[in-house]
C-alpha cells in the first residue's frame, strides 16, 4: 500500500511528520542558540498542525485540547522563555563549534533507518501511517538525544529535551489518537514545571560557573587526575 492510496489528511500528516524530522536534523546541525530555539518553535508548530489535522480527520475533539496546550507550551511559552534567557545571559552571539558535523548528520540518518528497522516487525499488521509516524517519532526522540549528546550548551540540552517530548507527543497523537486526557494533562503539567525549573537552573548554573557550558560542570567525577 503506497502513499497514493491514503487520504489527503494522512498525506498531510505524513508530510508534517517528515518536516518534524527534518527540523530535528536542522536543530542537530545548528550552532546558534537563537536559531535553535526558533527551529524548535517551528517544530512545535508543525506538531500542533499535525495534531489539529488528526483531530479533525479522526474526529477526536479532545486532540484539539492537546493541540492547544502544545501550542501554548511548546510554540509560545518555552521558546519565549528560552529566548529571554539567551538574551539576558548575553549568549545570542555565541556560536557553538560542533565537531564532526557530518558524522553526526550521518549518524542521525542511520538512526532514522534504525527506527524503521526496530519498529518494522511489530507494525506489520498496522497501517502505513502508523508505522511511519511511530518510526519517525522514535527517530525524533533519538535525534533529540543525539542533539543533547553533541551540543554542550545547557540551553541546547533543554531544546533537545523538549524535542524528545515533541517526539513522544507526536507518537501519542498520531499512533493512538492521544493518550487519555488525565495523562495528557499530567504530562503537560510536568513539562510546564520542568520548563520553569529549567529557567531557574539557568540562573543558578550561570551564577555558579559563569557560563552555561555543561562541559564545565565536571567537578563530580571519579577519574584519576
Amino acid at each position, binding site marked *: 500500500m503506497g502513499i497514493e492510496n491514503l487520504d489527503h489528511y494522512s498525506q498531510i500528516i505524513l508530510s508534517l511528520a517528515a518536516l518534524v524530522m527534518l527540523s530535528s536534523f536542522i536543530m542537530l546541525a545548528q550552532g546558534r542558540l537563537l536559531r535553535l530555539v526558533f527551529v524548535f518553535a517551528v517544530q512545535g508548530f508543525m506538531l500542533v498542525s499535525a495534531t489539529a489535522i488528526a483531530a479533525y480527520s479522526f474526529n477526536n475533539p479532545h486532540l484539539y485540547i492537546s493541540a492547544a496546550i502544545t501550542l501554548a507550551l511548546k510554540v509560545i511559552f518555552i521558546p519565549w522563555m528560552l529566548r529571554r534567557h539567551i538574551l539576558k545571559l548575553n549568549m545570542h552571539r555565541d556560536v557553538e563549534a560542533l565537531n564532526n558535523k557530518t558524522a553526526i548528520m550521518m549518524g542521525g540518518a542511520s538512526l532514522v533507518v534504525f527506527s524503521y*528497522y526496530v519498529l518494522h516487525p511489530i507494525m506489520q499488521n498496522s497501517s502505513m501511517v502508523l508505522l511511519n509516524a511511530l518510526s519517525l517519532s522514535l527517530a525524533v526522540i533519538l535525534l533529540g538525544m*543525539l542533539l543533547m549528546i553533541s551540543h*554542550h550548551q545547557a540551553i541546547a540540552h533543554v531544546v533537545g529535551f523538549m524535542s524528545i517530548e515533541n517526539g513522544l507527543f507526536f507518537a501519542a497523537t498520531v499512533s493512538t489518537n492521544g493518550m487519555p486526557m488525565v495523562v495528557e494533562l499530567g504530562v503537560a503539567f510536568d513539562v510546564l514545571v520542568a520548563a520553569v525549573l529549567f529557567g531557574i537552573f539557568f540562573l543558578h548554573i550561570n551564577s555558579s560557573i559563569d557560563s552555561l557550558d*555543561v562541559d564545565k560542570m565536571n567537578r563530580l567525577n571519579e577519574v*584519576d587526575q
Partner: protein
Amino acid sequence: MILFLAYAAVLLSFLSGILALLMRQHCSVIKWVHYCCTKRPDWQQRLNNWLEQSVYPQRIQQLSFICLGMAGVFAMIAGVGGLMSEQAMTAQLPLGLPWLPWHVRFDSLSGLFFLIIGIAIFAVSCYGPGYVKGNNEQEHPFAVLGLFSGLFIAGMLLVLLADDAFFFMISWELMSVASYFLVAFQHENSANRHAAFIYLIMAEGGAIAIILAFGVLASFSDGGAFTFDALRNASLSDTWASVAFVLALVGFGMKAGLVPLHVWLPEAHPVAPSHISALMSGVMLKVAVYGLIRFSFDLLGDIQWQWGVALMIIGAISALGGILYAMMQPNLKRLLAYSSVENIGIIFMVLGLSMIFVAKGHPTLAALGFVAALFHAFNHALFKNLLFLGAGIIQHQVHSLNIDDMGGLIKRMPHTSKLFLIACMSISSLPLFNGFVSEWLAFQAALQVGVLDDAVLRSLVPVMAAALALTAALAAACFVKLFGMMFLGLPRTRHAAKAEETQDKGMLFSLSLLAGLCFLFGIFPGLMINLLDNVALQLLGHSLPNATAAGWLWLTPVSAEKASYSAPIVLFLAAIAGGISYRYLRRDPAMALRESETWDCGFGGLTPRMQYTSSAFTMPFRRIFSKVWIIDETITKQPGTMPLQVTDIHYELHVSDHSWPKLYQPIEKSVNRIARLVSRMQTGNIRVYLSYSFFTLIFLLWVIS
C-alpha cells in the same frame, strides 16, 4: 534435658553480653531496682548498697563473667552428656525464615566441641575479671568488650547446634562478626584496625565459600532444601561432591587458618584482648574444624580418598609452615597464633588420614585417625588457651609482647612460669602431657598404613608421618626458645626486671585449671578417648576396637600387641627414678649448693645484652629453611669504627610470610585496577552520560529485534 542445658549455655552467654551493656546505665538500673522492689524496702536497700556508684562497674563485670562461667559449666555438662548419649537430639526453634525454622541438633560431635568451648569459657570467665580490672572505661569500654564476647561465644555454641544451612550460616557469621569487633576493640592502634579489616574480609570470603558449598549440596538435595537432613540425603556425582568439598575446605580452612589462607590469623589474634585471643585461637579454630568434619564426614557422606590426600598435604604444609613462621616471631601472641596454624595443620593431616581409611574401607582405622584428630583438637584448645591466658598476664606485667623484652621472669613470676612451662611441654608433645598422646595416636594411625593396597598411598602416608615428626621437633624447638627467652636468663628490660607475679587469684586459678587438665589428660587419656570413641561411632559407624583392652592403665588403640602406652606407669617409673637419684645424691649436707658468679671467661661483666636473643636462637633454622620466609636482613656499620667494635654495628631483621605478596597482593591489586577502570565510567560529563543511555537504548533495541 541435655538440649536445655545447651540452650541455657547459649542464653547465659547472651545474658552476659547484655549485662555488660548495663555498664554505663547505673542510673537506669537503680531506677529499675526501685521500681521492682517497691514492696520489699529491705531488699531495695541491700541492692542499692550492693550497686553503689563506686563499685557498680566492678559488680557488673563480675556478674557478666559469672554468667559466662555458668554458661561454661552448662556447656561442659551438656557436652559430656552429648558425648555419652547414643542418640542425637533434635528440635526446632520458632525463628528464622517462614518456611525454614531453625533446626537444632545435638549429637556427640557437637557435644565434644561444646565440651571444648565450655572448658575454655569457664577458664576465661575465671580469668576475665582480673584481666579487665585495670581497663580505662572511657578508653576501652567494657560494655563493648562484654557484649561482643557474649555474642561471640553464643555464636560459636549456636554453630554447633545448627542443623540447617541457614541457621548455621547465621551463627557462623555471628561468631565472625562478634570476633571482628573484639579484634577491633583497641581500635586506636592502626595495627588493630588493619588486622580487623583483613579478618573481616577473609571471614566474609570464607563464609561465601561455605555458602557455595552448601549451595552445591542443596542443589542436589530433595527440592533444594537446606536442612542438614535433606543435605545428608543429597546424592551427588563424584565431581560435584569434590567441588563441594573443595569449597568447604576453602571456607572452613579460611577460618581454621590453613596455609595459605592463614594470613588473617597472625594479625588478628595478637591484637585482641588476651582472653579473647585465647578463645579465638583455642576454640574458634576448632569450630572451623567442626564445620569441616560436619560437612565432609556427616553431610557429604561418600568420602573419596583424594580428599584425604588433599587434606593431608595441605595439613602438612600448614603444620610445617605454621611452626616455621611461629619460630621467627618476636611477638609472643603472634608466635602463638602461628603455632595455632601448625596445630590446625596437624589436625587436618590426621583427619585426612582418617578420610583415606574411610574411603579405602578400613573403618576401624579411620576411627583411630578420627579420634586422634579430635583428641588433638581438644588438647590444643587446652594448652593454647593456657598459653594465651599466660601471655595476657605477662603482657600486663611486662607491658610488652616482644619476647626479646623479657627474660628472667621465672624468678619474678614463679606460678605463671610453672604453668606456662606445662603448656610449653604439652604443646611440644612431650610424654606425660596431653599433646603427646594425640600425636602418638596419630603416629599409630599412620603406621597402620600397611593395610592399604595402594602403593602410592602407602608411601605417602609415612612421609606425612615424618613431616609430623619434623613438626613436633620444630615445635619443641620453638617453645623451648619461647620459654627460654621469656622466663630464663637475665631480664632484658627494666620492665621485665620489675615484673611482679599477678595477685589475682582468678587468673592463676584459670591457668592452673587448664594446666591441670593438660596433665590429667596426659596421664589418663583413656577418659577422653572413650568419650571420643562415641563420636567416631556415631559419625563413622565404627569405634576403636579395644582402646583399653589391657586394662584402664594402658592405651591400646589397635591391639595390645601392636602398640601400647601407659602414662600412669611411665609417670610412676619416672617418679621412682627421679626420686632415687635425688635422694641419693643429696644425702650429704656438706654437699649443699654454693652460689657464685656466672662464669664469664675471665673477662668480667656479663650483661643481659650478651644473652642469645630469640632471633639468634633461631638463626640456624633461618639458614636451613631460608626459602620459607622472606628474610630482610640489614647490617649497618657506623663509618670509621674499629672492625671489631660490635657496639657500633646495627643489625635489623624482618621476617615475613610469602603468602601475603604472592597471593593476596595480586588480588588486592587487581580489585583496585578493576575499580579504577570502572570508575572511568564516571567522567563527570553529562554528555557522556547521555550517550551511555543512548547507546544502551540502541543496543537493547537491536538485541530485541
